């Protein structure tokens, strides 16, 4: 591989891995901070139990 190819690969992978870990890591951390009743320990429920009726 040429140096320029390694540089492009390294830069792009760094950016993508950084933001993936930053954002998905926060989602994972928020998961472990809440206990959901009746769910697996640590799972955070995200939805309302049911859609509201039509207006």
């Amino acid at each position, binding site marked *: *591989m*040429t140096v*320029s*190819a*390694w*540089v*492009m*690969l390294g830069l*792009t*992978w760094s*950016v*993508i*891995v950084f*933001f*993936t870990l930053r*954002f*998905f890591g*926060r*989602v*994972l951390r*928020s*998961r472990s901070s809440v206990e*959901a009743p009746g*769910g*697996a320990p640590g*799972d*955070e*429920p*995200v*939805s*309302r*139990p*049911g*859609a*509201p*009726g*039509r*207006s």
Partner: protein
Amino acid sequence: MPPVSARDSWATRVGLVLAMAGNAVGLGNFLRFPAQAAQNGGGAFLIPYLVSFVVMGIPLLWVEWAIGRHGGQFGHHSAPGMFDRLGRARWLKYVGVFGLFTNLTVAAYYTYLESWTLAYVWHSATATFRDVDPAAFFSAYVGTADGGLTAIPGPALFFFVVTLILNALILSRGLGRGIELAARVGMPLLVGFAIVLAIRGLTVEPGDPGVVASPLEGLNFVWEPRMDGLTSPTTWMAAAGQVFFTLSLGMGSIHCYASYLDRRQDIALNASSAGWLNEFVEVVLGGSILIPIATAYLGLAAVSGATGGGSGFALGFLSLPTLFQNWGWFAPLAGAMWFGLLFFAGITSSLAMGQPILAFLGDEFRVSRRTGALVFALATLALGFVCVWLYPGGAFDEFDFWTGTFSLVVFALAEILVFGWVFGIDRGWEEITRGAEIRIPRLFRFVIRYVTPAFILAVFVGALVQPAEGAWNAAFASLFAGEGWPLAPESVIGRVFHLGPEDAAWFDAAGRPTVILVQDGTRLLLVLVFLAWAGLVHVAWRRHDRPSRAAPPGRER
């Protein structure tokens, strides 16, 4: 049994993000991206690609999540109802018809493609490709071996039906116990398979059985920047198009998944998380498997030729099954892992196509989830049968272009304009940022209102008038010289008017049907399907007889 949406909900936040990421991650992450990058400037392709991701991909993700969550507060989990709630004009709900039409028609051919991966898992695991040439196998499998326009290949139909049954069964279990469970199992397996294959592929060396070049030559082909590509509109169009399609934008499925959120639930972080997860799978994993392995065993010249059209399909289905045979005892497992990861990528996407259909039938016609899943499977089978039967005549490609490409861009352009200009950027911004767990720069107000629509418009116009061989500079020179615009046969206009073939007749001199008849017949079918959806929406709104368009409790419109 209650209608679909009355009980459905996401069980966990991670499950939601994985389902959204699974919706975005598809076969294109592994087959299309590496070929597009290699053929459009290599490492330089990633510059317009990431620019497009930031100014078009991420803003559109936020907009689609916001439209979905907003519609969900009114009990709407499919696009027509959501768009109806974005303004007072009655025509808005018909914009949402795209969100039903696209999902069903893309599902028709996409689940057929997905069924190929399932069949290839079986044939890889049972070592079929040790003795059979994959190219000959493929032609027999889809029925193109005898050169006719039609075929009813039994094994292909069998795996297609099995795939549809799997989809329907998962959909009938609902969001938490069906779609979310599939994503929570499928996505980690997909990533695990991809990592194993990438490591195995990148560590073969010249001197190993069958190896003719270093796999790093293939990686170099994908990543070496050819900066002259940056000044080419073709590179920018390709990059914007790849970002657009890889995120499953303009489908209506993101809206649907987001509609099951609370009105104060975060959008900004969840959407960003799902979007960047897709980029990880596409760029880091997708770019490290297909082309490096193929280059190691076929050489760079052959790989460059095979990816010339910007697709890695031929390498993925016709070459890799043979190349894996060089890996000894690991060959059946490698084949099963490769097609297995493609299958997981496919099914997490096709489930996202089914849910909006179920939601629409449930919301508007009080159809139960199980019945909705059955209706979706049967409708997909009926339309998909056209793709199977007329695959040799080109019906599959027509579905792919008009529903899987053109329709998405039209819907995305319409939705970003409706969101920024009809719903209004002030309300839109409030919708996106409410409950946000990350701060979104205010610059994105401007981006959503002006830059993203301009980007999508450029992609749309570019596809409409794409010049021959993608030579934009030469096309403008020709135009200014008064010699007209050299339209490419594969441009939208070129396709509509069948540019390219000298004789675009429905029947040949001997009175036999031609490919043109198949193409036009397929287009007519797609138009009828769109009109049928529009008719259903019309009927649904007449049945509602809604007395008011009031906001739900605690919310001002």
